[in-house]
């Protein structure tokens, strides 16, 4: 409905009771979509929290008996914990309460030399980051640029309040999934060849310690894991009925709420996923630009991000326990305005899942994301490019949905993502 014709307006005045009913029906539809959107967030964060608790159990077992078998079990739990968490990512952009919190749990990329020992090829300094190779695990006191940090006790507070983004450098990531990932896998020294990080279980042994400071490394892993759970618990609480995230959403009204859903979908699809997390790695052919660069689990991170976008549109979320959460969808609301726009967007979201699946299948053969983006790997590069293209196309579909719902006066403000002057529509 682009304009409100005079005739329709007078009709609305003439048949007040009828039109009020029609308006009310539409409002209810939007409200129920928004409520269900909140319910999916609640379920997905609850699943993320419980998967993180499983991870903590595995890590505790590993620290009790550090063997290759218990390390492998901990890694398996980490990968499982990523499945629900990545499906929360469509909630990040648009919901300020999520976006402001997100850095604590999923910040990336990180200068891992802040945390622990690194290979000599990593280097000792960076233009941007004085803490590039600070190595907190090996150093009880940091003295950098005239600032002294007491790191004698490795605690969640030290990681979360002092080290995280220390000196206002974003790549100083001391907490969250990727810090834990580094602590479990270690650096991936295979470049764009097959293989992930190969940290030895003995890095955590109190009797046969490798690479030194195993006691402090153990403290770090424990502290980072317990902090992850604290942070996830906070966000899970925010999405309970009447939680802060639900209130923030409700305050935007129906249109504002619907725009929030689409903002999250579009920003994750385009600037974040297609651009920063995928295209960037492809153009620099460098495994440093891999989202899960230690574990080589990047394909699944991207796959579940795409699923997250689809979840919030179709109103369906498959929980970790297998049950399907299904309810009033944005898709149906868009279809009510334009069946064509809705059909197209659904097809685009499906197509993206298909291209993501190709990437997942390649990974199963050992051709993980870092291999696919390698210089000269034409086939691999093309597979990744297909994903970028599909995400870019679906962004157009999301814009069409915004227009169909007449939310186009809602405007989005970005951040320093892919950065000027790069454009992800390249080549």
């Amino acid at each position, binding site marked *: 409905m682009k304009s409100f014709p005079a005739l329709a307006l007078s009709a609305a005045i003439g048949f007040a009771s009828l039109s009020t009913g029609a308006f009310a029906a539409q409002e209810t539809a939007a409200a129920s979509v928004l409520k269900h959107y909140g319910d999916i967030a609640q379920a997905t964060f609850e699943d993320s929290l419980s998967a993180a608790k499983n991870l903590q159990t595995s890590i505790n077992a590993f620290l009790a008996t550090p063997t290759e078998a218990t390390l492998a079990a901990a890694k398996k739990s980490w990968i499982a914990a990523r499945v629900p968490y990545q499906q929360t990512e469509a909630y990040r952009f648009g919901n300020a309460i999520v976006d402001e919190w997100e850095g604590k749990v999923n910040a990336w*990329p990180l200068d891992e030399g802040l945390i622990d020992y690194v290979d000599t090829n990593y280097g000792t300094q960076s233009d941007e980051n004085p803490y590039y190779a600070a190595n907190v695990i090996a150093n009880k006191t940091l003295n950098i640029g005239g600032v002294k940090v007491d790191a004698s006790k490795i605690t969640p507070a030290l990681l979360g309040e002092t080290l995280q983004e220390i000196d206002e450098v974003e790549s100083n990531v001391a907490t969250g999934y990727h810090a834990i990932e580094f602590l479990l896998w270690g650096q991936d020294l295979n470049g764009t060849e097959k293989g992930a990080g190969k940290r030895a279980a003995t890095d955590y042994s109190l009797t046969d310690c490798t690479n030194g400071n195993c006691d402090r490394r153990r403290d770090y892993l424990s502290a980072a894991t317990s902090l992850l759970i604290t942070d996830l618990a906070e966000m899970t609480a925010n999405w309970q009925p009447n939680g802060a995230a639900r209130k923030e959403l409700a305050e935007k009204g129906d249109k504002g709420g619907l725009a929030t859903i689409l*903002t999250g979908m579009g920003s994750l699809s385009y600037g974040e996923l297609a651009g*920063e997390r995928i295209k960037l790695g492809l153009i620099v052919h460098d495994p440093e630009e891999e989202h899960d660069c230690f574990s080589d689990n990047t394909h699944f991170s991207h796959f579940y991000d795409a699923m997250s976008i689809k979840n919030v549109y179709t109103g369906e979320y498959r929980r970790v326990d297998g049950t399907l959460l299904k309810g009033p969808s944005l898709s149906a609301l868009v279809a009510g305005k334009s069946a064509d726009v809705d059909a197209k967007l659904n097809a685009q979201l499906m197509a993206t899942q298909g291209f993501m699946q190709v990437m997942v299948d390649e990974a199963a053969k050992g051709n993980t994301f870092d291999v696919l983006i390698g210089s000269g790997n034409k086939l691999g590069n093309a597979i990744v490019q297909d994903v970028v293209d599909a995400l870019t196309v679906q962004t157009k579909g999301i814009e069409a949905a915004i227009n169909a719902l007449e939310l186009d006066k*809602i405007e989005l403000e970005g951040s320093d993502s892919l950065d000027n*002057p790069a*454009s992800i529509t390249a080549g």
Partner: protein
Amino acid sequence: MKTIFKMVNKQLLIASGCLVYLVASPVNASQLSEQRWQEFNLAAVQQHIIPNYQTLVEQSNLLVTSVSAFCEDRSEQRLNAAKSQFKQTQQAWQNIQHIQFGPVTMLMRNFSLQYWPDKKNLGGRQLNALLKQAGDAPQYDNEFFNRASVAVKGYPAIERLLFEAKLFAQLDSNPSYCPLLTAITEHIASNTQSIVTEWHAELANYHHYAEDALYQSPREAATEILKTLVEPIEAISDGKIAAPLGKTLAKMRWRKSESWRSKQSIENIRTNLKSLQHLFSGVSGASTKQLLIESGAGELAAEIDRQFSQINAALQQIAAPVAMQYQQRQFAQLSSVQQQLKQLSDNLLASMQPLQIKLGFNRRDGD
């Protein structure tokens, strides 16, 4: 920097100080004709885009010549000439950096010409790795550049090779140094030439609008051009100023600025803003400013133009930092420019409404 969700609502407009302009504009301003948008497109392409790319080609060719001349005798004099030419070539790029559609996006030329910011120091690491392979007598041919990372084939790579003392120390000891340096300049020159050649062919897209064509209508083509006017303002404010400047003087990290090695960070911003103002109001016939006036938003148009001029004047007064550090007064000056850019960005975004243009998602949305 966090993503902020905002609605163009009354509150925001009051906050950004432009409510008055929208209220002043007629509610039902007549929609600009497709013919008018067509004139807008041709004005931008023919008076702004193609001439600026043409200058970039000329300046990039001059860089090939001066770098080759330096590599012949490696004299101090020719080094200085090459450095000075690099700065001019870089400004020619800054003049047209905002264009992010058309031939510059083909084959990732935009990234190839300038990969920045380089948060993971890829350019440094990858150049070092290439120079280490000198013993294998590598060929820097097309095949090499097809495979090479974008971080080693553009202006920032040349800047590192010419201005970074640690790297430059390898000039005489590393047999690959000059061959790599000259090959990158030649690659850049050929890339920029392709852009101009293709833009002449690209003009056909501005004479054929259809369902299956690149653009369905002149208005759609114009949206692409307007994106390159509006989006860079905030990118400059955030990426080129706020990030390196930091929240306080003590947090200033000038190494996060663009082109700090050649001390061109501020000059780049001056060039960007001058060029963006040209795109806004400097092209004749059907500039953005002119179309805003025709859409009944004359006051907003004038205000935006005034802000551009004010920012350009303020930038003239700001010197590059000495030894990568500002004093409080200069810090405050540049912070103030950053605030003005934010306001300019808000006004430009608001100006899309009277023009009835929807910019859609921004590649900078996300984190």
